């Protein structure tokens, strides 16, 4: 009789009065919800919901990782950069401008195996003629003119576009070649856009 009463009580008690199930911490609950509610579409597959090493540490430190850890991981990222075999880091700035303007690539509305762009103007001021520029990142206007365009600066710019996290672990800038969004030639052309003295950026 008591057992039946207990069962009836459990069955009819409103959910709010039931003892709470062992609650996940919010992060675990969030990741569980994302895995449950999101679906793959086009080239945006479910692996992209899983944090990689860099995302994991940045997510757990509010993008402010301890300095010693950041430096070591930045070095790891730098070691992973594949530099051009021909040793040339500077391409064609006219192509670079087109690549900077192009915001396509890596979304579920982009076709597979089609070259995308760098979306650079989404975040940066770059050339003098383009007024439709974002301010999420710093202005790159007159970059080569003010910073120089020698071999060291070419290496920095190439590396930064290839994998921005090699220089600042939790930077908001995507890791364009690391993730396969931009090709070697495309990065060379963007380097030219910023550093070539003939580029409008430096006029």
């Amino acid at each position, binding site marked *: 009789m008591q057992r039946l009463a207990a069962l009836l009580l459990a069955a009819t008690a*409103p*959910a*709010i009065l039931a003892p*709470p199930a062992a*609650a996940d911490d*919010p*992060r675990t*609950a*969030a*990741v569980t*919800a*994302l895995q*449950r*509610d*999101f*679906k*793959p*579409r086009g080239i*945006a*597959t*479910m692996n*992209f*919901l*899983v*944090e990689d090493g*860099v*995302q994991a540490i*940045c*997510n757990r430190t*509010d*993008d402010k990782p301890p300095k010693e850890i950041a430096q070591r991981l930045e070095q790891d990222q730098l070691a992973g950069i594949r530099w051009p075999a021909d040793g040339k880091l500077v391409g064609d700035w006219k192509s670079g401008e087109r690549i900077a303007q192009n915001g396509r690539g*890596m*979304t*579920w*509305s982009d076709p597979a195996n089609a070259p995308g762009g760098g979306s650079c*103007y*989404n*975040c940066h*001021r770059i050339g003098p003629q383009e*007024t*439709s*520029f*974002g*301010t*999420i990142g*710093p*202005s*790159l*206007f*007159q*970059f080569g*003119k*003010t*910073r120089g365009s020698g071999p060291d600066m070419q290496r920095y710019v190439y590396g930064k576009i290839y994998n921005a*996290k090699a220089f600042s672990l939790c930077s*908001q800038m*995507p*890791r364009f070649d690391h*993730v396969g*969004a931009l090709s070697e030639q495309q990065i060379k052309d963007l380097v030219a856009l910023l550093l070539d003295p003939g580029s409008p950026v430096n006029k």
Partner: protein
Amino acid sequence: MTRTLALCAAAALVAAAPVPQAAGQTKPPAVERDATTEEFEKFRAVLEADNPAELFELRGAALWKTPRGPKNASLERCDLGLGPGVVKGAYVQLPRYFADTGKVMDAEQRIVHCMVTLQGFDAAALAKQPFSNETRTPDPVAITTFVAGQSRGMKIAPPQTRPQEREAYAVGREIFFYRAGGYDFSCASCHGEDGKRIRTQQLPNFTRPEEAIRSYQGWPGYRMTGGVMHTLQWRLNDCFRQQRFPEPGYVSDSLTALLTYLAVNSKGQVYKGPGIKR
């Protein structure tokens, strides 16, 4: 009329000169007010006077009252949180916990729930093509626009009294700051600081009320690009697309959590009603 104004705005934009920035300059001022932004704000003010969103509010009102679906019932017994059929003020008190479903629900999610349970519509069919295009506005979009309009001028006040509501906020906050995807973006990458914009689109900072409301108050919104009526379900979907994430389910609980975070962060600010966008 709209096209003429669009041409005027385009001409103004070409003529506008941005504030020159020295290379390597540090952070721009708290709210970027260069000539480009000023022109867009003027453009928006002109169009807010006659907002096509009002037509969708009227359509939504009609859909609310009309008996429809396999059960041939209206939505007039739908409980949006303030009691069956109470629409006035409901939108600004969402998302909230509902005892009948045992979970926190946002406006459009609750409206779809009512369409399914009261009218007999099929949830999967509603989720198949849930967003507007140039030729079609789904019924939940029009109804959500109507419901939102009935909270015009009221203060945003989603409850945080139940543990489930507080949990939804906490989970929403985690999602907001969760960096992932091919570009390592979280919502915070764009919406976590003052004074940022993407191209010429201002990006309100969702972590504080005076900024969060600048975005929250514009949805549902009539978007002139394409002439379409969109709700926050569309806006979040398109954000995740541009974040290079896979696709969130329509009216799924992950989005409810995120909407709870946004609504609670807009608390106390006045909701101006369905807005208009470029």
